[in-house]
């Protein structure tokens, strides 16, 4: 690859294909051009729209303050791409270096970036999921349909799942004055991402704002009326909720099925890659021409014990795309690792919730500043004597401070007094994460590295 001028040829007249024309795909494409890539750039996306932004879909758009069709992402520069929109990639031939598309055509590449993201986990019962009034929220089309049904003034909305998206939907419904019930299997909202201590604060927020919050229950079935519209849901505690809009908010599934049989290390947990965004094949060998970025990727992170992290985070998609694009066009000695510190925001019930690091790795938490009762505080997570994550409710200006503590593996419990610390925050508490073997939906960070407790593996060496 190096020294023989092939990299120069790639820059001048090579072919780069991006599959997944959304946030990560667009930012990668811009970076490639910025770094002087002058060859052919093909953007393949199964949605018929140019890249748009998703976070507003569950916030501004559901509040009726912005239109879903108006969320196209601003461009940083021209990318002069060959756009293939509205057509999915259906296969990959790594030996021939071609991507196969749903319309029967093929596109050859010298470098491939996979940024196919995730999709909403559908309601497990297909027939019930197809009832009128049952929604998921991932795409622009989903948001248009859901917003329209909220605007029509349903009698009650049922949100199944109280992760970040579910909580934001419930919050928007309340702000629109709609009666809303939230059903969550865990004991509180946001538990998978932030643990039970913070989950309890979130639960109070729901209830104070008039959400009918049911925790520790599962929805066992949806019931339609004769015209095929949903009318009620049955819960595991025997209760029935009558609702004419149901939003299924049970987390996401990685879009990797199209890679089955390709030989790439892709599966339900995402596509494994090295810190330089290069994908692994099924033999655990790193590829040199296939890169991954965004929600679909899982990559090892030095700050977090080289655990493989899958992040469903906007900022990660941007940063990882930029690194992948840089590395695609670089000699091996010039490549950069993707060492972005996870960061996430959410907005619900008028409160700004933000986190950095990997709270879900934390075993303990300290309320380092402010107080939970006031909904204005900073929680710091500890893991094996170091600071591993932090969350703020309406105190985001402190986050960069704690981010530096995470980056420098500062000791936990915090050894110094902080501004505005109340006595309740002096002692660390159990962060109260659910048993990791019981999956909760929507943790937003998934740790998928090797765990010695994992005994399901069978090793079958291949014979030549």
């Amino acid at each position, binding site marked *: 690859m190096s020294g023989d001028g092939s990299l120069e040829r790639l820059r001048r007249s090579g072919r780069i294909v991006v599959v997944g024309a959304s946030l990560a795909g667009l930012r990668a494409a811009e970076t490639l051009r910025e770094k002087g890539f002058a060859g052919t750039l093909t953007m393949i996306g199964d949605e018929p729209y140019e890249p748009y932004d998703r976070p507003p879909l569950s916030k501004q758009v559901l509040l009726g303050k912005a*239109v879903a069709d108006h969320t196209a992402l601003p*461009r940083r520069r021209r990318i002069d791409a060959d756009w293939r929109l509205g057509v999915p990639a259906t296969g990959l031939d790594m030996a021939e270096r071609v991507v196969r598309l749903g319309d029967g055509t093929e596109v050859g590449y010298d470098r491939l970036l996979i940024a196919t993201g995730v999709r909403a986990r559908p309601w497990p019962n297909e027939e019930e999921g197809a009832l009128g009034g049952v929604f998921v929220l991932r795409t622009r089309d989903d948001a248009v349909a859901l917003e329209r049904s909220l605007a029509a003034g349903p009698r009650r909305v049922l949100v199944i799942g109280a992760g970040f998206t579910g909580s934001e939907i419930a919050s928007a419904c309340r702000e629109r004055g709609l009666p809303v019930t939230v059903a969550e299997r865990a004991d509180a909202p946001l538990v998978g991402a932030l643990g039970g201590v913070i989950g309890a604060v979130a639960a109070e927020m729901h209830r104070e704002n008039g959400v009918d919050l049911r925790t520790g229950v599962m929805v066992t079935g949806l019931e339609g009326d004769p015209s095929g519209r949903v009318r009620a849901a049955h819960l595991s505690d025997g209760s029935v909720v009558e609702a004419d809009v149901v939003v299924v908010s049970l987390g996401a599934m990685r879009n990797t099925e199209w890679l089955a049989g390709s030989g790439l290390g892709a599966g339900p947990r995402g596509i494994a890659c090295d810190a330089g965004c290069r994908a692994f094949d099924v033999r655990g060998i790193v590829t040199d021409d296939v890169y991954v970025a965004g929600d679909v990727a899982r990559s090892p992170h030095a700050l977090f014990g080289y655990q493989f992290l899958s992040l469903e985070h906007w900022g990660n998609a941007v940063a990882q795309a930029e690194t992948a694009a840089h590395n695609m066009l670089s000699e091996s000695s010039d490549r950069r690792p993707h060492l972005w510190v996870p960061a996430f925001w959410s907005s619900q019930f008028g409160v700004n919730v933000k986190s950095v690091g990997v709270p879900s790795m934390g075993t303990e938490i300290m309320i380092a500043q402010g107080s939970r009762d006031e909904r204005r505080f900073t929680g710091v997570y500890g893991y094996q004597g170091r600071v591993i994550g932090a969350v703020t409710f309406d105190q985001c200006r402190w986050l960069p401070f704690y981010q530096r503590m995470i980056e420098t593996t500062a000791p936990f419990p915090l050894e110094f007094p902080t501004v505005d610390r109340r006595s309740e925050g002096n002692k660390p508490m159990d962060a109260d994460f659910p048993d990791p073997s019981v999956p909760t939906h929507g943790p937003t960070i998934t740790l998928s590295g090797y765990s010695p407790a994992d005994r399901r593996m069978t090793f079958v060496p291949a014979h030549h």
Partner: protein
Amino acid sequence: MRLVVDLNRCQGYAQCAFLAPDVFAMHGDESLLYDPEAAEEHREDVARAVAACPVQAILLQADADEPVPTGGGLR
């Protein structure tokens, strides 16, 4: 006029909401809501907000001339 705010970076200083109130608004004490496709008539205000944001969190479309692709493919 397209824009996006990197809300990881945004620290809720509300400068933008002060300078371009038709496009940016605070929601609660710290959360920012904005119109991702603001009307052209606010361009000057938005440009001022972009410049004034203390953490440079607002990205405004750089080059509006690129042809907008539309879906073809399977349909």
